[in-house]
């Protein structure tokens, strides 16, 4: 066990994966010599050489498309897109090819690959550097979408992703990279893709989120505990496929749900979760499910980003509303 930041835990996961399987190669902008703009791949080029840790030209479609070809050709590429806002040029490759080759060829060709993407706001970054459009990927068939909320999960989920027979979009919340330190097991260990975690039990309401938001859910739960409310927290960890059973079970128990995401609201993950909860738990609902989300606006820049990203106060207020309903 070592105490690691999420950036370190991901670095560790990549090292473990590359040590174990020489088919694992990394490619992306600045992943090699400088070790990535967040230093997540720091030192890997020294250990594995430039043939396996590849600095690429500035071309996201090329990165994903080449990684796709590599995957079909028998490697296990882990591509990095520098920020989620720069994944859109690769969107066609992801939607039209990465997520489809298995079905298109009826299992004859497959693309076991990971696309790692730092995402989310909260650090007052420049435009395009705070995107939280994970729903676009969750809406896309044929890929899985994983979002760790902390170091331990990040390592275990990434190792599962690298070994997954299908392509995984792995979204790394930027503001968690260095904010949370945790004990992280050494060596190889896995957290299964597709299973949510009940990270706190409670009975008054269910708080649902993933990624950076989970830390805020914990803070909100603490604050509510001070007011005598015990809320359950579900950390989704995988947003596609959604672990519906865990969500439904929790909400059937508590009768109230607040879903928190940083993303835009319309057709976001909060909408998906609310839709499926009312489908499968309507008769348990004691109040409307609340969506606490980013708005349907471009993520504001530093000076007004605070008005966009859900904070603890907004989360607590939403829980209070459901409790009063």
């Amino acid at each position, binding site marked *: 066990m070592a105490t690691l930041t999420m950036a370190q835990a991901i670095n560790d996961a990549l090292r473990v994966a590359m040590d174990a399987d020489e088919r694992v190669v990394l490619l992306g902008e600045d992943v090699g010599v400088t070790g990535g703009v967040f230093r997540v791949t720091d030192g890997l080029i020294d250990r594995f050489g430039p043939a396996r840790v590849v600095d690429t030209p500035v071309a996201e479609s090329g990165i994903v498309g080449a990684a796709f070809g590599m995957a079909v050709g028998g490697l296990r590429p882990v591509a990095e897109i520098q920020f989620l806002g720069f994944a859109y040029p690769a969107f066609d490759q992801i939607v039209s090819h990465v997520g489809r080759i298995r*079905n298109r060829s009826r299992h004859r060709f497959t693309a076991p690959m990971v696309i790692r993407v730092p995402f989310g706001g909260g650090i007052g970054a420049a435009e395009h550097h705070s995107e939280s459009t994970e729903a676009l990927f969750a809406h896309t068939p044929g890929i899985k979408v994983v979002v760790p909320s902390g170091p331990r999960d990040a390592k275990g989920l990434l190792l599962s992703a690298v070994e997954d027979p299908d392509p995984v979009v792995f979204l790394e919340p930027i503001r968690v990279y260095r904010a949370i330190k945790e004990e992280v097991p050494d060596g190889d260990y896995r957290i299964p893709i597709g299973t949510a975690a009940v990270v706190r039990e409670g009975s008054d309401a269910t708080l649902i989120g993933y990624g950076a938001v989970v830390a805020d859910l914990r803070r909100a739960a603490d604050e509510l505990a001070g007011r005598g409310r015990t809320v359950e927290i579900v950390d989704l960890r995988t947003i596609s496929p959604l672990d519906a059973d865990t969500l439904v079970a929790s909400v059937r128990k508590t009768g109230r749900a607040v879903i928190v995401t940083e993303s835009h609201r319309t057709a976001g993950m909060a909408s998906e979760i609310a839709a499926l909860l009312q489908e499968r738990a309507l008769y348990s609902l004691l109040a409307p499910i609340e969506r606490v989300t980013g708005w349907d606006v471009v993520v504001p820049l530093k000076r007004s980003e605070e008005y966009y990203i859900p904070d603890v106060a907004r989360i607590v207020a939403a829980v209070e509303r459901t409790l009063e309903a």
Partner: protein
Amino acid sequence: MLRWTSATSNLPVAMEPFRLLDERGRLEGDPPLGLDEVRRLYAAMVEARAYDRKASAMQRQGRLATYAPLEGQEATQIGSVAALRAEDWLVATYRDAGAMWLHGYGWRNLFLGRMGDERGGHPPEGVPVLPPSITVGAHMIHAVGLGWAADLRGEARVSLTLFGDGATSEGDFHEAMNFAGVFRTPTIFVCQNNQYAISMARTRQTAAETIAQKADGYGMPGVLVDGNDVLAVYAVTTEAAERARSGGGPSLIEALTYRTGPHTTTDDHLRYRSAEEVEQWRRRDPIDRVRRYLEGLGAWDPGWEEALNAASTTAVEQAVAEAETIAAFEPDDIFTGMYAEPTSVLRRQAEELRRDLGE
């Protein structure tokens, strides 16, 4: 000697396409192949045409969905792929049935795909041919990745990708060419410049005189070749494959050719080009040319032609029969192809569909 532009010397590309057989089948240089091999290429072109005509006919009968005919482009498709080894990768498009078949994909699969059956996308094990790319442009970088992977795995495999003149306008063409150049992947880019992208004439697709000259912008050799001359296409592709296999990196081949039919079976091509133009190109038919060449050498006779036609028909008809008698696609099958194991979400949706179908 072929005249490639060179990655470093920055030489202008030759404006006259490289050619070995003229339009009347007369040899203009050293033949790259012996007579038997030329006869095999000829036979392959004949069979590709038989498939193509059958497919168009079936489409008219409603037995296939939209079909993109390849007639006129046989020399490029057969000549380029003939230069590959069995283990080399082929990444081609919706119009490249001839090329894909020659590399082992199977007529049955090609028919199935055009019937709207995903199982057409599953070539036999060991056949390194991806299902045809329907999106224009995106697949070339896949060939780059495949070649790159082969390199990293220490395999001496090259990858060849076929694409049209229109595809060169997509950003993905650029990224594929650039990656291939930077990482010196063993990739052969073969542009079938058939003069049109649906209705758009090649002259409006890019202001560059040739597509071959684009190679220079990627530090890669490029060559212009007569795409209706199967020997010339074979020769330049062989050079490119040798270069790729020996660590010399990628090449761009522009094969000048023409589709003599419509873009697809739903296209009315005389809206954007004249019957005279089409007729002119029909006179440069890639199959005729080789027949004349063989005939001149006494290596062709009507009996052989008849036998070839009969064999082609048999092969194609048998493939049709196999495709048309494949087992039904079960409702569940639309879910089972997506992941190695259906996800929890898809398992639930499959149940829902079964319920809706009253099962």
